């Protein structure tokens, strides 16, 4: 069956922005129609270098300032605490690297959960680091985290707001309190939460990615609170500026701000609907697919995301079979990764990594598409098991 709506559409074509069966919202959403409109306007009006003093440059500066102010308002911070980067990955790395560099005298150790985004893990691993384990549901051990940040020589702590792979919300408020008690700045990767869930206060720096909330790709947000010591980690950067050096993609930044305002206004209303749809997936998959492990916290989780693993099934084959049925999902199985290693998040939780599927629903998902997914999945898994000769094992 072909998607009802075809490919993502431009401005003026109504609320539905994605193809049906697109269940990989955590990787990125189709650009929101409001963002398209704002980007088109900004491309015509804000093409000049916002650093220039002539009229066209001043106009671009006004657009940039307004976009930054709108982002700051949504994130409940000051505009001069918001930096713009070329991606969420760059923002997450800059948060960690910049604070570590600024706090060298206090120490160089980065304390982080075992389930951080790989960008944070790689950055942490460029010096001394401590990885704090998670439980079977994928929630970091807050007590062990507190003990680790209380040790001498810690530059910063890093905790993802909610797992991008299994959806489990992390104990941020509790971890923020132990970081504050230890005098250690907390860096939060909020890429999966911004625009969907409120992020508890108490952090020192935060990173996010516009494509995760319906903004265009190529806009990362770096927030560093006033009073937090942060050294720009880029060569030649101005000491005072948070922005990644180089020309900003101003229309994309304007679109990102417009999309965030639009989705945040609807987020509370859609949260319950998505939460219930994911409940339906969790229940029906567990009931209708034999030998399946539905992972992550069933309650305290991202509203739109669920992960499960099917015993004896090849994850890549499952991904392709679902694609043929019209569903775009993601997988943490090693055979689907360019590294041929299983997801470090599934490993940290100690749950089955093969036959793994991550479903993450866009906000405007049609519940009939979810039902169609639930109708075809048991047959697809059964067929793959029959082909592999593992039925009854």
């Amino acid at each position: 069956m072909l998607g009802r709506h075809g490919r993502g559409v431009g401005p003026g074509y109504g609320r539905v922005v994605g193809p049906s069966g697109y269940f990989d919202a955590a990787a990125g959403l189709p650009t929101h129609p409001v963002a398209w409109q704002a980007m088109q306007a900004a491309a015509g009006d804000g093409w000049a270098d916002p650093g220039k003093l002539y009229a066209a440059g001043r106009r671009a500066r006004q657009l940039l300032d307004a976009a930054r102010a709108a982002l700051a308002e949504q994130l409940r911070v000051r505009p001069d605490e918001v930096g713009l980067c070329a991606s969420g990955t760059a923002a997450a790395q800059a948060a960690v690297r910049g604070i570590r560099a600024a706090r060298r005298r206090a120490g160089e150790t980065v304390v982080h959960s075992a389930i951080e985004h790989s960008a944070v893990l790689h950055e942490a691993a460029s010096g001394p680091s401590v990885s704090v384990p998670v439980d079977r549901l994928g929630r970091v051990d807050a007590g062990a985290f507190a003990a680790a940040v209380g040790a001498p020589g810690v530059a910063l702590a890093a905790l993802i707001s909610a797992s991008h792979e299994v959806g489990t919300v992390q104990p941020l408020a509790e971890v923020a309190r132990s970081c504050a008690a230890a005098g250690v700045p907390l860096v939060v990767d909020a890429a999966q939460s911004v625009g969907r869930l409120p992020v508890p206060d108490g952090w020192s720096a935060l990173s996010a990615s516009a494509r995760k909330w319906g903004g265009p790709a190529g806009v990362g947000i770096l927030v560093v609170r006033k009073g937090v010591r942060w050294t720009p980690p880029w060569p030649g950067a101005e000491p005072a500026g948070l922005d990644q050096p180089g020309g900003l993609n101003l229309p994309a930044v304007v679109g990102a701000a417009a999309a965030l305002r639009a989705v945040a206004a609807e987020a509370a209303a859609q949260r319950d609907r998505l939460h219930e749809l994911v409940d339906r997936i969790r229940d029906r998959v567990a009931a209708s697919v034999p030998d399946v492990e539905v992972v992550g916290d069933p309650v305290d989780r991202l509203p739109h995301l669920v992960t499960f693993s099917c015993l004896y099934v090849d994850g890549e084959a499952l991904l392709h079979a679902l694609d043929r049925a019209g569903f775009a999902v993601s997988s943490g199985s090693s055979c689907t990764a360019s590294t041929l290693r299983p997801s470090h998040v599934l490993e940290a939780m100690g749950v089955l990594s093969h036959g793994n599927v991550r479903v993450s629903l866009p906000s405007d998902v049609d519940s009939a598409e979810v039902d169609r997914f639930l109708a075809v999945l048991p047959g697809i898994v059964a067929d793959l098991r029959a082909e592999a000769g593992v039925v009854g094992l």
Partner: protein
Amino acid sequence: MNAEPEVLDCRGQRCPLPVIALARRLPGLPVGGVLRVLADDPAAANDIPAWCRLRGQEYLGRVDADGAPGFDVRRTG
């Protein structure tokens, strides 16, 4: 003392094949018997213990043998 464990050589097999081979072979052992799965796929270190938990078998730990990662499993039932 326990006898030497039976060895199941899954080297070169990609996930989920070592777990499938384990599931096929273990019922052939007497209850209490130990099977050592040799598997160099990076997912095996995670998925063999996870399979034991799901199937109620006992994962004894990693014992490298013949220059390959080995994973010992005891049949409990």
